[in-house]
């Protein structure tokens, strides 16, 4: 019996999420779990005809949850690197984003170039691809990796603990909306182009095939685009959550 059969029998799709902040995964004002990735996962369960159970781990628990079989799949704003691909099976990318540089609006760092100065304090998220990007893009800078999600990066920049932040552009845009407009300067240029994908295990090939099929379908019928337009490419979600 394959994983899909198990899921059908169980009537439940178990999805591990990481609540890293808007726009991908967050807990709304009313305590409900929502976000771009979360809605995609819900859509998946709906197409499977089963109910969905979210397992909310912090970063330390996310990968073990998938590997140990506590979760069927993993939905987070995660970049499928080749090293990671040695351990888990990624779907094909469902969107592309990239790391961007942002600074406090009134700081002396106006461009990405400014941040390359020696000793600039660059805030990144621990373990995120932004951390790698920052190390190559700013070899002379002082890279500080934080844990706890994108919003705390913004908080650190806002408080002056670091000069520039590097994080996923969609996350930065989504999360900066919690501040008064114009608090941050977000550089227009991207340090890199990064795909985002979902992950499952290599011992669940059927589920992987299905998920890829799902991504194809929702791209073709526009549901994916609708989701991204609402969550990622605008701050339309702000007024609802």
């Amino acid at each position, binding site marked *: 019996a394959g994983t899909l059969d198990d899921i059908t029998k169980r009537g439940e799709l178990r999805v591990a999420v990481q609540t890293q902040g808007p726009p991908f995964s967050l807990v709304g004002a009313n305590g409900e779990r929502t976000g771009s990735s979360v809605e995609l996962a819900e859509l998946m369960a709906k197409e499977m005809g089963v109910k969905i159970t979210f397992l909310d781990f912090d970063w330390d628990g996310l990968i073990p949850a998938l590997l140990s*079989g506590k979760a069927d799949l993993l939905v987070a704003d995660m970049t499928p690197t080749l090293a*990671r691909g*040695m351990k888990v099976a990624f779907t094909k990318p469902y969107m592309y984003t990239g790391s961007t540089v942002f600074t406090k609006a009134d700081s002396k760092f106006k461009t990405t170039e400014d941040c390359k100065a020696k000793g600039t304090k660059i805030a990144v998220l621990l*373990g995120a691809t932004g951390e790698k990007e920052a190390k190559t893009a700013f070899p002379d800078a002082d890279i500080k*990796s934080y844990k*706890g999600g994108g919003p705390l990066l913004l908080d650190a920049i806002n408080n002056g603990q670091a000069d520039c932040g590097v994080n996923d552009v969609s996350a930065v845009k989504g999360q900066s909306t919690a501040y008064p407009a114009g608090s941050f300067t977000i550089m227009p240029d991207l340090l890199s182009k990064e795909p985002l994908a979902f992950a499952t*295990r290599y*011992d669940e090939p059927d589920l992987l095939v299905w998920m890829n099929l799902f991504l194809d379908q929702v791209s073709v019928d526009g549901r994916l685009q609708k989701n991204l337009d609402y969550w990622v490419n605008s701050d339309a979600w702000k007024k609802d959550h």
Partner: protein
Amino acid sequence: MAVPATHCCSLLPYSLFTIRQSPSLFITARPMLENFSFRTIVEYLPLFGQGLVTTVWLSALSFAGALAVGIVLAAMNLQRGRLFRVPAKAYIDAVRATPLLAQLYFLYFGLPRLGFVLPELVVGILALSLNSGAYVAEIIRAGILSIPRGQVEAGVASGMTYVQRMRFVILPQAFKVTIPPLLGQAIVLVKDSALLSLISVSELTRAGQLLASDRFMPAEGFITIAAFYLLLYYGLKGLAALSGRWFGLQPARSST
């Protein structure tokens, strides 16, 4: 990949609260242990080494700070006058009743609002010292109070000042009593220092987490840091035993 489902009897009651049985749970696949990669650990060893070094000196500095804070607080707490005692007690209680995480953020995000932007390491050491200091203060107070009243009086009677009594009579004796609980506190501090990874201090736990997030090898990462912490634990225990023996040169009990 999947190993055929063979039944395996669980050692513990299946679940005390919710019974969530799924067929895949009966598979004896050991994805994390079977594929446990010592090679990767070795590859990451330099990183763990750096983390270990940071943890050690960070904890050592913080513990020194905690001792200083603790001694001052304990001294304040032992005064007769309320002027010193009340604030010391309030501080100790507040610190003990709230999590280190809250205290860390209080300093990390709070200090800049008052115009102090300090490096993360400094904030981290400060937070650990101030936090552990409250516990150390209680340990020292208990140690000092365990010294028989007659010892204090003997010091008083021979004309020693408060400071001389503390230095020659009370503290050397109290120190011996406080070694085991201080060891306990040192261990707590070493493990608590992992929390500093939240404010981008790169220590031992961080190295393990890196292995988990770069290579998706959480078991390798976590088990390795556990091994290193255990090493530190036994190191500290040995140190405590040594100092205990050093202070215990004299026979264990006085017959007074």
